[in-house]
């Protein structure tokens, strides 16, 4: 669990409720070396990106992602994983997706949607969008998992997962099980 800034405590609490998972906060290259998979939390992508560089995590993390480490980015984390960020330089560039930051608007435009995501399960679930990005397009290597308000809100590329919303805020463990199953 990348633990530089943002909603990592919420993610760690969710992971703690799952069997067979040993949650580990990642703040240093030594932490990263011990991790088998990585979740990148919600928060501010610019702040997290600066911290990744200062922590010396930038190159090792890019290397691990290139080697195929499973990773899941929620909101800011999805922005960090994207290969293209509209109007900005990309960060880790691991996924074949283009994201647009704050695409739905300011905090007054934050919203909660309710819908099912076939890959994750048949039940309708609450999807919380906080100053959220959307995925503008996915490349040939990635697949769309769901659309909300006409925009791509989740995508998958092999063992990489990007969601514009926050399952850590609703404690939606199905999403964690889905990520672990990839």
């Amino acid at each position, binding site marked *: 669990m990348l633990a530089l800034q943002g909603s990592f405590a919420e993610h760690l609490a969710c992971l703690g409720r799952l069997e067979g998972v040993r949650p580990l906060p990642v703040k240093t290259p030594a932490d990263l070396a011990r991790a088998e998979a990585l979740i990148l939390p919600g*928060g501010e992508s610019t702040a997290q990106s600066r911290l990744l560089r200062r922590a010396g995590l930038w190159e090792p993390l890019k290397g691990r992602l290139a080697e195929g480490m499973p990773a899941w980015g929620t909101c800011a984390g999805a922005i960090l994983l994207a290969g293209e960020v509209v109007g900005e330089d990309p960060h880790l560039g691991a996924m074949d997706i283009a994201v647009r930051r704050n695409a739905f608007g300011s905090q*007054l435009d934050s919203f909660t949607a309710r819908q099912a995501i076939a890959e994750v399960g048949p039940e309708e679930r609450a999807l919380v969008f906080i100053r959220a990005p959307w995925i503008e397009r996915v490349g040939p290597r990635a697949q769309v998992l769901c659309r909300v308000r006409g925009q791509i809100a989740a995508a998958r590329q092999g063992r990489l997962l990007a969601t514009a919303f926050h399952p850590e805020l609703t404690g939606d463990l199905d999403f964690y099980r889905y990520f672990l199953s990839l």
Partner: protein
Amino acid sequence: MTEREQMNRNLAQMLKGGVIMDVTNPREAEIAQEAGAVAVMALERVPSDIRREGGVARMSDPKMIAEIQAAVSIPVMAKARIGHIVEARVLEAMKIDFIDESEVLTPADDRFHLDKRAFAVPFVCGARNLGEALRRIGEGAAMIRTKGEAGTGNIVEAVRHQRCMSEEIARLCSLPKEERMSFAKEIGAPYELVCQVAEEGRLPVVNFAAGGVATPADAALMMVLGSEGVFVGSGIFRSENPERRAKAIVTATTYYNDPKIIAEVSRDLGEAIRGVEISQIPESQRMENRGW
């Protein structure tokens, strides 16, 4: 709780572990963002200037706030006077991301805070103790910060407020259920929120430190004491080298439990804000005493 209230609390959760910086123009806002701030607070005069210049401190010029909103992609906050319904409505109309109903500005109402539930936009409010925090949350605040003593560069009041809150929460959690009502009466807080804190062992919203943070070590100290993030007002752009200091404070907030990293980032930052000894400030001029 409405869905809107929940999402406003959620935005505060996204700011956790981060630093929110006071900025007075788009250039400073860009420096803050580049340094890794999670949000900026747009205001015309930082608290130390307000303290020095005196007069009535009001909401900032909407033009200046709009310029800062255009300059950065991180959330932009702005301050409204305590109880000033219209200043808050103006900021909401500008689609500001968070309003600070702040004791740093001159209060507009000497008896009542805003009914923050009447707004869609989230609010952060200052508190010195648990009772004050729960009164503000009862009114609809989505986030709490210590008041500290803004503009002094002196961390002692923020430490006092954070410790007071933690001690009161610990005491409340140790009480048998039948004592909760009297505790609520004693601290002047809504009973339902007192019960919630007793069950969960923490405030129902995110709690940041504010008021007097001047150095990376100050920021880390507040995190060690249990704050979930840090506001820095005058401490950055009233210091000798704002860019370096801003970066250092961001890094120290993330690595608050790693003294080696804090030592590294604290090197050669130039002069900090000069600072004021609290006992030199007359009681009537202490900002922390504003609010009810």
